[in-house]
Structures are given as structure tokens and as C-alpha cells.
């Protein structure tokens, strides 16, 4: 690896009490740059917040630190020594520990058994149990080494994870989204623990989060990432939530210039906000008081109600995992509501019954097309008639000629680059697979279109095509529900934007009154 020229950035300059120094660390996945010349310094005895939206590159950066991901470029210094962290074992030897976002605990085992898992040395139950009790007491975690993990609340399970991490006495601790499963009270307790870990023992802590308030309350310094780059670096004292929100979701932009820059509107600048006011057509899609628990018992939809009018594009903003996936699943007939109702064009539709939503005229572009959008092992032509095979069939017999003609027409119309209608779906690029989904869903003449992260992973041209297709559908009178983590996309297309948080609507605004600061705060989970 060719050493890169060190810039004189403040973070890349060695400081006295540094524990970790990353210099111009870069990681690419294909065309996507997850981390773009990132500098980061963690100091002993300090908590460093790494703030950013989903996909900003925070997690990749942390994975580089613990050896799960090898960087393409840049240098890593641990306690002043340059190191190559090739695997997690190396990271552990260097004293780097991580408390993961998702628990890796075995439910039927006790706490000490879970802690002992993955240890390479001989198992000494008494010793492990004593150590667990010691750590628990020292940090006030209140964990009984003999409790069964399956009986613990999420908050207590996380403490078990923390014990697992601290047991190895790491000098550098990384917390990845630690509060995503915690109640506010549990989070507060967690941060008390965190303070103790740092202040008394001089450990260096990185707190990775997308929640503004917790980063503000718990950290000493903050690095803000956006699209793989560090956009801001600031001491926590002296910053405000609104500054952070602005940095996190992008500059405080004027709406019109954003739209023009995005290339969707003619640069003549004649489009005024009045002209894109929400249409007042009849309400086509209603979701009323929907409640849904996930398989793990978490509440995913908490009394969520949504109404979309014909011709309206309703944007759904929010950090991922706040109920968006479940909302799409319900509208794809993949999940059944525990309570609540969905109506399409005034008629109730049974949730969770195979094909009921599609039959009622709800088209869906799923966030993960491989999960519920396409059948990779079938041909393109077959994928184009998944929902309504009867359109190319007579008396139950499919007509290959008609199917191919149908496919050829849509391939033409939606500019799907492919060897031909009989090529298997898996041979297409992601963007062209997405076009197949779009073509199929729109060709069924839907009354509702649910588009979840429709442009994720697509290039500029494909993004523009998708956007114009969605807008054209709305102009034809389709009620569109656009779920996206890209604020630009929401701002560009939506008439109205709601923000989801914990399965509820945290806020709602018309496009012409969108306030980026407020949007960022709502997304970050701060009350606004």
C-alpha cells in the first residue's frame, strides 16, 4: 500500500493522548465509496461521537478498526504505532473492543456462559463467573452472572454485551448504535456507565450513532460523516442540535436550487412552489391506526395512519428501521396488521392475504428487490408477468408468444438493457432489474404505487428515469407513497413529507414549508 501524503488536517496530526489515529482511510465497494479519505482521532479518556445518517460510512469505518473490513487506502495508528488490522483477532490483541448493535448472545445460556463463548483459552467457569460479577459491580451494571440471557430485557442484554467487551480489558471501545433497542431510561444508564469507563480508566471510546441528542449528551467531541466523508469535526461543548442536523443531512439548502442541481427541473427556474402544491384528488390509500409487532416482539408500527390522495406523492422520511419496512410489507401483503385497517379506493383490503394488495391495485417497488420484487431464477419475460400471468394466458394456458411480445414491448418502453426477454433475471445489472420491477408494476395500471428506496444503488441516469416515471405515475392519478432515506429524493418528488419515528409519525410538512433543520431533528429522534 503506497503511503498517502499526510495532510495537515487537525485530526490527522498526532496529539499527546491519542489512542487511535486514522489517516485518509478509504474503502470502496465497486463504484460506491463507503469511506473517502477519512481522518479520525480518538483520545484516551474521551468519548468521541461519530454521527451520520445510515449509509454515511460510520459502520464501515468502525469495521475497519476492528478488522472486519480491510481498507483500500490510508493508514491506521494505534497508540502511535502504525498497524495493519487484518482480522478481528489482531484488533483484539491491539486492545480494540466493540459492542455491537445487534446482540450476539445465545438465549438459553447464562450470562457467564455467554461471556465465556469465543474464548480460546481453557474454560474456567468459576473464574469467568467471578470476573463477570466483578465487572458488573465495578460499573454498576447489576448483572447476575447466573441469569439466563433469554430472560433479560434488551437493556440488560446490552450490558451483557458490554461485559463481554470489557472482560478483555480493551483500551479502545467502540459502541455501534448502542441505544437503538433501549428505552430512554436504559440509554441514560448506559451513558452513565460509559462515563465511568472513560473517566476512571482512560479508555478511548467511539460512540457511533445517528441520534443527535445522545451524541450531544454523551460525547466530548463529534465527527460528522456524510456520504463517506467527514463533513465536520467539533468539540461537543459549543455546538447545537441544529448545527449538527444541518451537517448531518447536508447543507441548509434552498429548495429550488436543490431541485435544479438535481437535474430534475429545467434550469429555467420558473417552477414556483405554488405550482407543485399538493393535488386535492380523492383519497385513494388509507392506512388507519395500524399496529404491528415484529417477530421479536418489538413494536414496529405503533398506531400509524397514512392517507394518500390520487395524484399525490407522499414522501416518507426517517431513519431506517422506524417502521418503513413493515409499512411496505403490509402494503405488499407480506405482513398482517395486528390491528388497524388498510383501504384502497374506499374498499378495505385484508392484510397478510397473498396477493390481496396487488389485486386491489397496489403496486410495489420493494427496497430489496431480491427479497420480494423479482424471481432471479426466472426469465425477464416471466418476471414481467409475475403479478398477472393471466394477461398472457388463455384458459389457464400461458402463451409464450404473447409473453415474449409483452416483454419486448416493456423492455423497449422502460429501456431495459438485456440480451433478450428469455435471459434469466439474475444476469441483469441491479439497475436493469429495478427497471423490470418498475415496468411490471406500472404496466398493471395500479391505483397506488409504493416505492421503497427506489433509487438505491442506481446511477444518475437511472435515478432520473425512476424519478420521472414516479412523477408521471402521479400525474396519471396514481397515489404514490415514496419511502426514502435520501432527503433530496423526497424533496424533489414529494408533495408532502411525513417523518416516521418508532412506528409513528413524528412530524409532517408540506413541501413548500420544509425546514431542513426540523426535518433533520425529527429524523434524528429529537423532539422538535
Amino acid at each position, binding site marked *: 500500500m503506497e503511503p498517502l501524503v499526510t495532510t495537515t488536517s487537525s485530526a490527522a496530526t498526532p496529539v499527546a493522548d491519542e489512542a487511535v489515529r486514522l489517516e485518509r482511510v478509504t474503502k470502496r465497494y*465497486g*463504484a*460506491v465509496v463507503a469511506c473517502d479519505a477519512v481522518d479520525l482521532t480518538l483520545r484516551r479518556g474521551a468519548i468521541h461521537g461519530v454521527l451520520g445518517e445510515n449509509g454515511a460510512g460510520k459502520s464501515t469505518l468502525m469495521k475497519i478498526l476492528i478488522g472486519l473490513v480491510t481498507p483500500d487506502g490510508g493508514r491506521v495508528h494505534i497508540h502511535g504505532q502504525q498497524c495493519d488490522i487484518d482480522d478481528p483477532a489482531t484488533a483484539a490483541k491491539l486492545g480494540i473492543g466493540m459492542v455491537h448493535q445487534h446482540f450476539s448472545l445465545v438465549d438459553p445460556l447464562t450470562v457467564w456462559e455467554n461471556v465465556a463463548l469465543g474464548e480460546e483459552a481453557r474454560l474456567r467457569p468459576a473464574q469467568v463467573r467471578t470476573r463477570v460479577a466483578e465487572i458488573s459491580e465495578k460499573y454498576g451494571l447489576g448483572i447476575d452472572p447466573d441469569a439466563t440471557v433469554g430472560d433479560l430485557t434488551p437493556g440488560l442484554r446490552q450490558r451483557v454485551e458490554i461485559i463481554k467487551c470489557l472482560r478483555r480489558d480493551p483500551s479502545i471501545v467502540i459502541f455501534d448504535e448502542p441505544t437503538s433497542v433501549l428505552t430512554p431510561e436504559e440509554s441514560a444508564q448506559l451513558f452513565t456507565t460509559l462515563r465511568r469507563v472513560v473517566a476512571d480508566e482512560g479508555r478511548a471510546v467511539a460512540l457511533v450513532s445517528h441520534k443527535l441528542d445522545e451524541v450531544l449528551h454523551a460525547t466530548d467531541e463529534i465527527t460528522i460523516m456524510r456520504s463517506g466523508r467527514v463533513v465536520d469535526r467539533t468539540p461537543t461543548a459549543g455546538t447545537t442540535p441544529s448545527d449538527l442536523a444541518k451537517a448531518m443531512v447536508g447543507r441548509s439548502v434552498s429548495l429550488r436550487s436543490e431541485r435544479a442541481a438535481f437535474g430534475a427541473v429545467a434550469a429555467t427556474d420558473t417552477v414556483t412552489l405554488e405550482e407543485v402544491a399538493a393535488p386535492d384528488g380523492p383519497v385513494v390509500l388509507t392506512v388507519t391506526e395500524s399496529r404491528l409487532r415484529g417477530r421479536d416482539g418489538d413494536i414496529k408500527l405503533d398506531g400509524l395512519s397514512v392517507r394518500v390522495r390520487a395524484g399525490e406523492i407522499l414522501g416518507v422520511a426517517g431513519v431506517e428501521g422506524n417502521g418503513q419496512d413493515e409499512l411496505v410489507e403490509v402494503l*405488499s*401483503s*407480506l405482513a398482517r396488521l395486528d390491528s388497524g385497517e388498510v383501504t384502497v379506493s374506499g374498499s378495505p383490503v385484508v392484510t397478510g*392475504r*397473498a*396477493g390481496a*394488495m*396487488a*389485486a386491489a391495485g397496489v403496486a*410495489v417497488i*420493494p427496497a430489496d428487490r*431480491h*427479497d*420480494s*420484487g*423479482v*424471481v*432471479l*431464477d*426466472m*426469465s425477464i419475460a*416471466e418476471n414481467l408477468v*409475475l*403479478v398477472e*400471468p*393471466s394477461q398472457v*394466458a388463455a384458459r*389457464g*394456458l*400461458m402463451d409464450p408468444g404473447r409473453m415474449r411480445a409483452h416483454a*419486448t414491448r416493456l*423492455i*423497449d*418502453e*422502460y*429501456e*431495459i*438493457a*438485456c*440480451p*433478450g426477454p428469455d*435471459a*434469466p433475471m*439474475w*444476469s441483469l*445489472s*441491479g*439497475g*436493469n*432489474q429495478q427497471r423490470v420491477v418498475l415496468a411490471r408494476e406500472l404496466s398493471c395500471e395500479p391505483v397506488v404505487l409504493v416505492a421503497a428506496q427506489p433509487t438505491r*444503488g*442506481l*446511477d444518475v*441516469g*437511472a435515478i*432520473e*428515469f425512476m424519478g420521472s416515471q414516479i412523477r408521471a405515475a402521479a400525474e396519471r392519478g396514481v397515489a404514490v407513497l415514496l419511502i426514502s432515506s435520501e432527503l433530496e429524493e423526497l424533496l424533489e418528488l414529494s408533495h408532502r413529507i411525513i417523518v416516521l419515528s418508532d412506528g409513528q409519525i413524528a412530524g409532517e410538512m408540506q413541501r413548500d414549508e420544509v425546514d431542513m433543520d426540523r426535518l433533520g431533528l425529527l429524523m434524528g429522534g429529537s423532539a422538535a
Partner: protein
Amino acid sequence: MSVDADTSVAGPTTVTPTSPQVPSRFSSWSEIVVLYAISIFGALAISALLVTVTGGEWRSVFSALLDGSLLAPGRWGTTIGSATPLLLVALGTIVNAKAGYVNIGQEGQLLIGGGAAAFVGVHLGGPGPIVFVAIVLAGIVGGALWAGIAAGLRNWRGVPEVLTTLLLVSVASQVIGLGFRSESFLLAPITEGSGTQVSQTLQMPDGVRIPRITIFGNEFPVSVFAAVVFAALLALVLTRTVVGFRLRMLGANARTAMRSGVDSVRVGSAAMLISGGFAGLAGTVMLLGGDFGGYRFSPGFSINFGWTGLLVALVARERALAAVAVSFVFASLMTGSGFLAATGVERRITDVVQALLVLALLIPPAVLFVRTRRRAAAAREART
């Protein structure tokens, strides 16, 4: 790597430079032929070596296999008689496999189907044709219900059907054993003259037996024609009908299928019932065809035909028409072994020879399967 980059400017149907070679869903024929040639030649070579090393004459082993299955007078008729139930089991297996459900309990379903058929045949009197229809229905329903238990458990409690179908094989033989405890079920009454009571049923009456025809000195039951017609129909249903399309959709991506209106519980259960029904039908034609057990049902009646039928479906790579040929090949291996004893080569060695040949038939489809998976996975990987 820029596989992900989508060229929206490229016109429709153009092959972009990043698109892979024109992919075919079917591996080319030459590829398959070469694979089979290599693996069968390999198996023959190893077999020849084995027989020679243990002091046998390898030529006589192979010619015995050929004579027993095809060349000796009347033998290919016998082979057809064995191929028929194998084909039926394989067709059922193709149905559940296409729907993404696993059924590896055909051995038990075949046994239960045969038992139910025998029960009706023994106890129901009346005009031959009516009894015949009743027997066949009983066989189909028996096999279907046995597979239905597994489908029900999966839908009710999420019990993996790969386990239940397998375990139900043992249960099936216990149930049949129980049936032979009493003359009011399956056990044939003691006839005067013979002192011991054998675990078998009475013979099926003449009027319900499947007619046998003789062509060039080869005699076999006409049920083979029905089985081949079923194979053709199944191929048509799977490739050309909406029902078959939705079944395949379920097997290839259950969530996409559900969103598109395919109820996995209903369609999947139906596939399992059909699969078990075919196995039950196989048991029935074995009972009524005359090649097995002299029109009598007995506890060991299934003689591994369920397992072998499963292999036929695997080797045919879930294609109904290919299963016709493959079932004949497997039947040849079975009937060919009848002449092996005369070669003087040890039984243990000839068993290994047969196993090697079966293995040789299984390797090419396995290779093709793994490679297709890898190719698809690689394509997916490159795209995410």
C-alpha cells in the same frame, strides 16, 4: 468494477459491455453429455479394477448387468415394470421440489398408498372396474395423506418437512406392521393345509389387476403408458400453465410469490399432497401390476422404490420428461443385478459396482446444480 453502472443511454435490448455472455437457463447439451461420459467411464473403470483385483472377471459383471436389464429375452419388459413406479414417484417429487417444498418420505408414502390400496382390494367386493377405481383412489389418497401430515405440521407449527417426511417413513412401516396384526385389516387368513401364517395380504382378485401386454416377448403392465402420459402432462403443466408458473414462482422466491398472490400454505400443501399421491399411486401400480409380490401386499413391499424414485427426480434435474428416461436407466440397474449372482463375483463387490454406477449418474446433475448456483450467486454478488 462498474457492473453496477447502469447505462440508461444505451438503447433497449442492447447488450451493454458489462452484461455477461448471453446466458442460457439450460446448460448446453454437449456439456451434459461430456460430464456423463466422464463420470460413467470413471465408474466403469473403477468397477472393472475392483472386480479384477478381487479375482473376478469384469467383462462378465458388465455383460450380466446388460443381460439382466435389456439383452436377455423378456428382460426389458421386466425393466419397464420396475421403471413405472419409479417414474411415478419421481413425478411427484418434481411437483413438490418445484414448489420449494422438500419431500424425502416417498418410501413411506408409497408403502401407505400400497397398503391402503391392498386394504380396499381385499375388503371391497363388487364389479371389477368399480373396485379397481376404488383401489387406485385409496392408494393415491393414502400416499397423499401421509405426505399431508408433513405439510400440515409445517403450516401449523413450522416443523421442517424435510424432517417429518423422513421420519414418517419409519412410522409408515410401523403402521403397516400393525395392519398385519389383524385379519380384519391386511393379514390374509390361514388357509387350510398351510400351517404357518405369512405376513401378507390375499391376492388381488383377477378383475382389478392391471392388464399386461407382450411385445417381442417382453411382458409388462400397461400402467407404464399412463405414467408416461402423466410425465408429458406434468411437463406441460409446469412449463405452460398459469398454475405451473405460480408453483415455480413459489419455489423460486416465496416472498415475491406471496406478494404476487401465491398462497404458500395452499399451493405448497397442494404440491405436497400431489407428491404423496404420486408415491401412493406408485405403490398401487406395483400391487396391481404383477411384477412385485404376485399381486399381494406385504410389510417389505416398498423395496426402496421410494428412495430410488427420489434419486430419479434428482438425476432428471426436476424435469418430467427427462425422468422417463432416467427411471428406465435406474430400473435397468435394478433388474440387471438379477443376473449378477451367476457371475460368481462376490455379492459385496457387485453391490459396490452398482453403487458406483448410481453415483456416476448423480455426479453430473450435482455438478451442474452447484455451478448454476455459484454463477447466480456471483452475478448477485457483483451487483450488490
